[in-house]
Structures are given as C-alpha cells and as structure tokens.
C-alpha cells in the first residue's frame, strides 16, 4: 500500500460490527432469538428491514425463521425470563429496544440471569423500560377491557399502543375458559377468537362492520329479573 493513502484494512469483517436485519414480524423475532443469543457481539444491532438505511461501517446479515435451524442452541436453553423480556420489549413498538436486543442478549449471556437487573447498563435499561411499557399496558387492559354480548359470543374491542393481544388472549383463556369470546385489536385490525377450547387468530377483514358496531352508542345495561332464567342481564 502506498504512503499517504487511507488504510481501509481495519474495515475487515473481524473489526466490523454486525447489523442483523429481519422482516419485522413478531414470529420471526421470536424465532431468531436463539441465533442472536448464540452469535451476537456487544456492539451488534438488530433492525427491521423497513428501518434499514445502508451504511459502510457495518456488515449486514439477514435473518429469518430458517436461520436457527442449524444452531446447537434451542429456545429452551435461553432463560424464559430473557425471552419474555425481549419479546415484551419488541411488542412495545419502539425501535430502540429491538436495535439493542443483540447487545442485551450478549450481556445477559456473559453476565448471567441476574444481569437482567443491571439497570445501569444501557441495553438492559432500554429493554427493561420497553418491556415494562408493554406489561403495564397489558395490565391496564386486563382491567378495563369490556366485553359485550353478541348472541352467545362475548366481543371485546380494545385499542392499545403496544401489541398486547397474545398476553390478553392468554389471560382471558384462563379467566373465561367456558365462554366463546373475541378480542379485537382495533389499532392493528387483528384479533383472536376463542371457541371455548382453542384460541384462533382472526384478521378482521370485516373491520368496517365491526367498527360500526363499536361506534354504536353504548347500550344501557338493562336488568330483567328472571331468577329461573340463565341470563338476568341483557344489553
């Protein structure tokens, strides 16, 4: 190499940080956690492909559901609390915790499960705050979500900033195990239908008709006194 020219040698793969890309869905995110747990380094980042802007100082690696197929590490070797924390942080909808997920996983792997409480560490703090945001919104919705009766089905529309549908579905599956109910995330136009046995994902293609129902003036609760009847409250 001639004198006076900039030396690009340090930009070889050994010295470059890695930027992992994925399709931005929760399913893929969960599937690539074992990959990140196994290979991520302290300065690596993760981004949804839609957020990606090409740069020269990072090598990019695309991850998808198949990326974990050849890994020796499976989901069950990662502490459940760690998977929950990063999944909840992802569900908050904030970019920063997703970006710091590789750093977080690397830090926890190297320092043990107790490191989840090292809130002075930036990556831990970011994941902690985002996960708490999701869990507190889910907690509030568990209390304030209201069902209304549509025939024999309980219909529960709600609005949330974080994606809390799986948390709510699990909660109401245990709470109302013998009822049929629908949870409708009106923000994302998705939901779940529980038929008394299994939870199925429902995409609200008929969102408009449901929306008109939701916008209907809230019916007053009428109570008819029928001790022998099954339902004494009707909407």
């Amino acid at each position: 190499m001639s004198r006076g020219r900039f030396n690009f040698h340090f930009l070889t793969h050994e010295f470059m940080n890695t930027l992992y890309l994925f399709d931005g869905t929760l399913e893929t995110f969960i599937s690539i956690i074992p990959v990140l747990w196994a290979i991520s380094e302290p300065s690596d980042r993760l981004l949804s492909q839609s957020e990606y802007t090409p740069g020269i100082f990072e090598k990019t690696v695309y991850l998808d559901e198949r990326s974990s197929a050849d890994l020796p590490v499976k989901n069950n070797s990662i502490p459940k609390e760690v998977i929950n924390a990063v999944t909840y942080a992802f569900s908050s909808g904030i970019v920063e915790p997703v970006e710091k997920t590789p750093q977080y996983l690397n830090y926890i792997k190297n320092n043990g499960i107790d490191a989840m409480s090292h809130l002075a560490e930036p990556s831990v703090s970011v994941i902690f705050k985002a996960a708490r945001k999701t869990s507190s919104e889910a907690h509030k919705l568990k209390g304030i979500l209201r069902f209304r009766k549509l025939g024999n089905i309980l219909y529960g529309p709600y609005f949330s900033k974080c994606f809390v549908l799986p948390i709510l579905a699990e909660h109401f599956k245990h709470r109302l195990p013998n009822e049929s109910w629908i949870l409708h995330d009106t923000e994302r136009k998705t939901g779940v239908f529980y038929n008394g046995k299994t939870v199925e994902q429902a995409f609200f293609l008929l969102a408009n008709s449901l929306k008109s129902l939701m916008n209907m003036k809230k019916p007053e609760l009428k109570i008819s006194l029928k001790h022998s009847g099954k339902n004494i409250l009707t909407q």
Partner: protein
Amino acid sequence: MDVMKKLEILSDSAKYDASCASSGSNRATPKGGIGNGKQCGICHSWADDGRCVSLFKVLFTNYCIYDCAYCINRRSNDIFRTAFTPKEIADITIEFYKRNYIEGLFLSSGVIKSPDHTMELLTEAIRILREEYLFGGYIHVKAIPGASKELIEKAGKIADRISVNIELPTKRSLELLTDKKHTDIFTPMKLITEGVSTSIAERKISRKAPKFAPAGQSTQMIIGATPETDLTIVKLSEAMYNKFDLRRVYYSAFIPVNSDLRLPVLREPPLLREHRLYQADFLMRQYEFSADEILSPEHPMLDIALDPKANWAMNNFHIFPVEVNRADYQLLLRVPGIGPRSAKRIVIARRSHSLSFENLRSLGVVLKRARFFITCKGKRMPFISEKFATVYKSLSENHEPGPFQLPLFNT
C-alpha cells in the same frame, strides 16, 4: 323492586366501606375509549399474590337494627331501604364478571334481624357463587360482629378475604358512638387469625386441606370522628398487624352524614390526615418502620406539611447524606424518594456499575426528594442545599387552604 334500583341504592351505600386507598374514584370514559371507574361501586383492591383487582362493591342490605351515630344506614335515618337476595347478588356478580367489568366481589351489609341472620345471607350469596356458578374470582366479605363462630368459619372457607371493621380506635369511642354492637371486635378477628394460621399449617401437610381466607383479613377505622391522636391510631394498627397478622388497616376520613350531637362539626372531612395515616401505615408494612419511629408522645400528630418518611428523615438529619453505592438496603429504604423496589434495584445494579444520579433516575428513584439525602461516588448533586430549613421547605407540600366563600348567616 327492580334489581337495577336496588343496585343503585346499595352500591351507593357501600361507598363508605374502604377496600383500598383509591376507593371512591370517579373516572369518566375517555372519548373513543372503553371502561370507566364508576361502575356501581367497583374499586381497586389487591389479591393475595399482590395483583390489583377491581371489585363489585355493594351492600347486601341497608336495613340495620343498630343506630350508630356516624353511619348513613343507621336505624333512625329516614332513607330508602332495600335488600338483595343471595341469588341476585350471585347473578349480578357473574354477569359483571363475564363482561370483565369486575374481578371480584366486595360484600358488606347492614345488620338485618340479627348478626347471625345477616351472616347467613352473606354466606349463602358467596356459596352460590362458589358452588353453583363455580366462580373462581376474588371475594371479600365482611364478618358481622356478634355472628356465630360457625358462620364466620364457613364464610372464611369460601371467601378470599374476610374482614371485621374495628370502626373506631378505642373502646371508649365505640361505646360513645355505637349502639353496643361492637362490644367485642377482637373475638372474630382472633377467630379469623386462627383460621388462617390453621389453614396454612394444614396445607403444609396436605395441599388438599381447605384454604381459609387466603388473602388474609383486613379492618377499617374512621378517622376524625373522635379525638384520638395519630399516635394512638398508628400504635393500634401496629398492634393489630402484629397480633392478628392483618394484611391491611384501612383508614376512612370521617364524613358527616348525620346530624348528631355526639359527632364533631367539621368544615371538611380530614382527607389529608387520612392520606398521612396511609403513608405511615405503608412505612410500617413496607419500610420496616415501627410506630415509635414515626410518632412520639411529644409529637403525637403527623405533620400535615411533610409526609411521614420525609419527617423521619428531617428528624434524623445527621444520618444523611448516605452514599448509594455503599449504603445497606435498610438504610436506603429510609431515604425519601427511594422505595423498596428501587432500593432492591440499586443493590443489584451497583454490583456491576458504580451508580450515578442519571442511573438512579432510570432505576426509579425520585430524585426530586432523594437528592437532599444521598451522594453518588462521594459527591452530592450539584446546587443542592445542605441547610435544614431549605431542605424542609423544599420537601414540604403546600396545603394552605385556598380562598373560600364566607357564610352569610353563620358567625
């Protein structure tokens, strides 16, 4: 009478029963949102595992054979009286529960015919819920003083929490203001304590042994209707926590609803005093304070301007500042602005990093209060005064009464 009308009357009558600090909150439905905080007596409480639950708070009946001076439902009051049937209570609870309006039932009652008769009705309502509807939600039921041991035991086996209201802090006050119904509050309390401890012991031997009030017992007392000091009240609460293993003591500011010569005339209910007592109560339950540390015979009333923890810190100003990177957990708990959760976080987080003020903020420490009492890496926060008077002024809350309309006819 229509059930809805009964619900309106009896949930309104139940608003004086406290099952949590935030009872009586009234929140309208946000535009485009769902849910509100005025669903016929629903309020918040805490289950035995610490979960926050919203309750259907209602009286079984507002008929009462007693004539207590402070009670809206007393016998001599001319109010609309009604009563649910046990089946009605169970049906409404289930229908509300299915719609996720509530997470449980808080059932209290006036005394109809006799304590035993009332307790039978309450027990029957919760039995229907548990056995006929297989209701697994939270149930808090009031034990009626004077009811038989068997009925209280039966209720305790069905309910999650059972409570007896102590009503007033001393026996003398009870004799002055009540209709001799409260001659013996501590006997049912003791009975419940024994039931809970027996159940815990039995369940250690066999998991199939029946639970007895797994969320424990609580009680409630009225503040400001009688002249007891805060020291008397806090000491009584401490004694009850220690002796009866109570989960909570609820304080209810006296609201004058009856005109009675035995009652004091107040311009407004002592809500701030109630708030301070809740703070002092929290210090005893969560912060390992004793009643003697909070108040003394020389200062028997809580400082209205300062919360009890800040007041303790000001009285022990020589201990501070403490270094957050070295102080033990118990000392951190004594710092205003640091709670049990943030103290635990500090203890864990400082193992890996030396903590700065910025770190403390992210750990949940309220620096606005804590900054006067701590150092980080040996340094105080910049521009923080060390003078007692300045710190006192910064911590004290302004509770000066605002302008109010002068009465035209009173002198």
